[in-house]
């Protein structure tokens, strides 16, 4: 058991160390959502206000609307970046050291997931602090209530990253992941526009968005930010976490998964 805990802390510490040493990554992770918030949302600055849908009680500006979506974006990018590091580890050979540890494979993956989620959440709160400086604030209760939602969403998106990394053989292929996973997931969700707005332009688009687990992660965060709870979003996020987690464990299984070929 102590061995398992040692491994857990070592993996998290390595993740933290990697993060601390990559200051550019931290800045990039912060600048990306801030650009969306302060430039993109400013252009859309809805003088009209968005129509009221739960959890909102009154009219809100567009900036306020996209904050949960941008938190989701931070978790999504960080989840992917963390999986990118696994591909790098595999190319460099350091993964062998990790995977030969006398511990269950799923435990190692879980430790990795926990580490990347912790980093994601740190980034999310720094983003919220910067947003607050620019006058985009939430209710005090929201900042606390959001934490479990961020943890769950972070784990789910991290698990997706892990699952993907087990199928990607080379670093260069990661660009493909950006195009075919991150962007569709982000744009085909409720991060930038409410789902009823999507339904106005296309029913199909709405259905795709409603199916996208990222939408449910964002809605879970959105409701939590207002001290509210969305059971449906929780269910979908948990389901997606289970599926992606199982895929990752399967993918990294030396007997069956994609790593077998190597």
């Amino acid at each position, binding site marked *: 058991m102590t061995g398992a805990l040692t491994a857990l802390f070592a993996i998290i510490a390595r993740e933290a160390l990697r993060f601390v040493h990559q200051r550019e990554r931290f800045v990039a992770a912060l600048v990306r959502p801030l650009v969306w918030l302060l430039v993109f949302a*400013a252009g859309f600055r809805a*003088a009209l*206000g968005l129509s*009221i849908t739960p959890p909102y*009680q*009154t*009219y809100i500006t567009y900036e306020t609307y996209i904050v949960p979506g941008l938190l989701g974006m931070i978790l999504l990018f960080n989840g992917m970046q963390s999986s990118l590091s696994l591909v790098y580890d595999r190319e460099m050979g350091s993964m062998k050291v990790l995977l030969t540890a006398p511990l269950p494979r799923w435990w190692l993956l879980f430790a990795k997931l926990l580490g990347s989620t912790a980093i994601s959440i740190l980034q999310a709160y720094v983003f919220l602090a910067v947003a607050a400086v620019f006058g985009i604030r939430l209710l005090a209760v929201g900042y606390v209530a959001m934490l479990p939602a961020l943890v769950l969403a972070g784990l789910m998106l991290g698990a997706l990253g892990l699952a993907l990394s087990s199928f990607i053989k080379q670093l260069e292929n990661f660009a493909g992941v950006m195009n075919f996973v991150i962007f569709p997931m982000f744009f085909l969700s409720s991060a930038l526009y409410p789902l009823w707005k999507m339904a106005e332009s296309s029913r199909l688009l709405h259905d795709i968005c409603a199916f996208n687990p990222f939408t449910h992660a964002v809605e879970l965060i959105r409701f939590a930010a207002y001290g509210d709870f969305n059971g449906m979003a929780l269910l979908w996020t948990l389901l997606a976490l289970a599926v992606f987690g199982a895929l990752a464990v399967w993918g990294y299984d030396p007997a069956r998964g994609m790593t077998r070929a190597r």
Partner: protein
Amino acid sequence: MMLRASLLALCAALPAAADEIWVSNEKDDTISVIDVETLEVVRTIDVGERPRGITFSKDYSVLYVCASDDDSVQVIDPETGRVLHDLPSGEDPEQFVLAPDDRHLYIANEDDAITTVVDTESRTVVAQIDVGIEPEGMAISPDGKVAITTSETTNMAHWIDTESQKLFANTLVDSRPRHAEFVKEGSEMWVSSEIGGTITVFDAATQAEKSKIDFEVQGVHPDRVQPVGFEFTAGDTHAFVALGPSNHVAVVNAETYEVEDYILVGRRVWHMDFNRDRSLLFTTNGVSGDVTVIDVAKREAIKTIKVGRFPWGAAFRPTN
């Protein structure tokens, strides 16, 4: 005596009904009654056609409503919601103000270019005063000596001596004046101009212009920034100004005449009223058909409540 005591005990045992905000719905011919505790509509009352101006008598025993398309002012019992009787009002009454004597109503007759003075007790027209074209805003000084009518097309504030019922001054304001209000114990008179996009502040004693307030909402075309109704916080320190189709309420410092804040509310915000301690403000949003509740201290919209179609005016009613 026993009966009275037991009735009192019963009343004390019952949960005290919360205060209310009454909202006139111009297109639904109804009034929505909002409970200020639960922030929900608790009653809907049918009234005459196109209700707009809405105000209670000083003791809140009756409600006066301008039923514009019925050419009358309706007197309503707030307990039962029944129309008690109509008052003669002249044609197309839009806004009115109740004199401090709790007896005389000064009514702007939009189509007739007159201001009608009605005695609510004898139910008769006491006077009709010729004013500019399309009169709308109505105000009366706290001592009841001066009444104001603003005329939308003539772009003037007309100053009426209530003793002689004659105009004694006319002052120009910006395009389409909508609402007027005496403040700071009657020493100042404010007029909002919808198209001009300004509020003009007059010295009430000299009728001289003292200041002009401009509004600028970030991201909203200046043409859409149209000040209409406004109300003052406790002590007349700040004014909350409805900016029509800009969908914002401005917070104006009444000392410096500077705009300090803009608050997003529903579409085409028109008039407003406060709760008892003026900690909450209720704005009527015509196009979106709802009422936004603003936390006055935090200057934040906290909730928006669906009411009837095209809510116009709002009036506070205490229930105990």
